[in-house]
């Protein structure tokens, strides 16, 4: 991230103390949680908001005529307002609640792509995408006869924009690139990617699952057409996320699933659909999840995303330095613009062994392909070990990680 200065007060201990899950011991050692790219822990206020909702406000949303339904609707629609403001959307009508980024991308592929694409059309993605930004497009290609094109990356895991330029043509209908790589940490130049795609008339989608926890996102400034993120990676609950799209695109799209909530009038001869965003939210939604998400977004904005980015940058620089000093370690993903993700391999130890053994020292990291098998293949590895940092991590966490990593390696080789 471009390093903004930390504004006071920024007190990592005070932030950390709000997370009950971080106060525990694992295998008799204090937990050091460095698996934040998989999911973040939740602050007490988010847990309390969900608890409060189920304890007092629980009811079904919309069309309610009683007090609880009114409160549930306010909570749910209030979360939509917060989400719209979080992304700097024009209106809360542009926010569709979904289960997470994966569902959002599938919704775009099937709701936008399927009726519009035909044989000969092209979809462009990056080489280091999460599977959720690969497989829905492969499915769409199978359904429509469109072709998938891939922007290559250099050895630092940066997208090669000159190659991207060569892929673009009037056949390009969709460009979908992750904002931040979950496996390798690269921050992709979405604004530039969007400008280049719009020049050939393609729509642009960005998967923001890894970006929203780490940096301020302004969808209007990015210039994309669709943006999606998952609540659980940004200190909110699992099972809730948001899709943002320009209102005119949502208006033009057909619903993705049919059922309750998404209709205006139903007769046995046919139905008319609700207005946006409700026509994309069939069935009783994840109300408690939305309430928790709204609380999480308020919480992170209260800290300030510039502060979050600045602190995580400092941690990333420190972690990179400590890990680089380590004999036999190769860091995979060395982009100049990177989020707080440290993916690495040992030349003489398997990532899964490193992950299993370091867990015994209380250190939670992830080992595997990180749902980005093409990215692993590009760098000639089957798996990496990955430490990913969040706002509540400290330099002491990184020291504990490095110390445990030394012990782990000594056991393995």
């Amino acid at each position, binding site marked *: 991230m471009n390093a903004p200065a930390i504004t006071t007060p920024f007190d990592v201990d005070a932030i950390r103390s709000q997370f009950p899950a971080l106060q525990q011991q694992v295998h008799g050692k204090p937990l050091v949680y460095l698996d934040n790219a998989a999911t973040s822990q939740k602050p007490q206020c988010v847990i309390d908001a969900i608890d409060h909702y189920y304890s007092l406000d629980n009811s079904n949303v919309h069309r309610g005529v009683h007090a609880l339904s009114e409160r549930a609707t306010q909570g749910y629609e209030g979360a939509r307002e917060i989400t719209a403001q979080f992304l700097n959307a024009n209106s809360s009508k542009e926010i569709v609640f979904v289960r997470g980024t994966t569902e959002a991308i599938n919704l775009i592929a099937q709701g936008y792509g399927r009726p519009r694409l035909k044989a000969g059309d092209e979809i462009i993605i990056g080489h280091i995408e999460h599977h959720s930004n690969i497989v829905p497009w492969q499915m769409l290609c199978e359904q429509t006869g469109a072709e998938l094109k891939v922007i290559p990356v250099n050895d630092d895991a940066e997208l090669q924009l000159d190659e991207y330029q060569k892929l673009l043509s009037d056949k390009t209908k969709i460009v979908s690139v992750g904002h931040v790589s979950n496996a390798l940490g690269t921050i992709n130049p979405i604004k530039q990617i969007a400008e280049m795609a719009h020049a050939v008339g393609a729509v642009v989608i960005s998967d923001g699952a890894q970006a929203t926890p780490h940096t301020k996102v302004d969808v209007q400034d990015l210039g994309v057409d669709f943006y999606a993120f998952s609540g659980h990676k940004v200190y909110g609950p699992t099972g809730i996320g948001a899709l943002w799209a320009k209102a005119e695109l949502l208006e033009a799209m057909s619903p993705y699933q049919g059922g309750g909530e998404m209709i205006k009038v139903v007769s046995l001869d046919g139905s008319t659909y609700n207005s946006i965003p409700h026509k994309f939210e069939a069935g009783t939604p994840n109300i408690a999840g939305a309430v928790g998400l709204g609380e999480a977004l308020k919480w992170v904005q209260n800290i300030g995303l510039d502060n979050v980015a600045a602190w995580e940058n400092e941690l990333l620089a420190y972690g990179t330095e400590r890990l680089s000093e380590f004999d036999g370690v190769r860091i995979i993903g060395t982009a100049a613009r990177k989020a707080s993700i440290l993916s690495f391999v040992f030349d003489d130890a398997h990532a*899964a062994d490193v992950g299993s053994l370091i867990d015994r020292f209380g250190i939670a990291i992830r080992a595997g392909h990180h749902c980005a098998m093409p990215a692993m293949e590009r760098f000639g590895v089957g798996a990496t070990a990955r430490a990913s940092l969040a706002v509540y991590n400290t330099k002491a966490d990184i020291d504990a990680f490095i110390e445990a990593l030394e012990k782990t390696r000594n056991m393995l080789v």
Partner: protein
Amino acid sequence: MMIDTTAPTNSIEEAQAELIEEFGFFEDWMDRYQYLIDLGKKLADFPEDWRIQDYKIEGCQSQVWIKPAFDDGRLYFQGYSDSAIVSGLIAVITRVYSGRQPQEISSTPPEFIGAIGFTEHLSPTRSNGLHAMLEKIYSYARQPQEN
């Protein structure tokens, strides 16, 4: 290269009991892990050309192969993994099951796994991998044997 077909001198029950006793020497689980890893380091060489689909175990995070050989009424196994922990698991499994008669293999449940504490101390994905390796050993034992 050939798989070593020297018949074991102990029974399959004794082999299980010995492993339980050896791991029982270590109170701390880190020491047990270290012992497991050290056993894995002593596995015999497993040539590249044995690393084929027929011998591969699916369902593991790491790459694992187990090759059988039949000699004088007994089934022998040799295995390889790129993971040090899985290599250790191959070592303990082959100590129990390699060099036994097929019906002996089929009729012997892996009691040492639970007794040592692998079931509770390995991650679920590791346990799945261990289960997949045992299934492969059992399936070799169920097949008609040829010398």
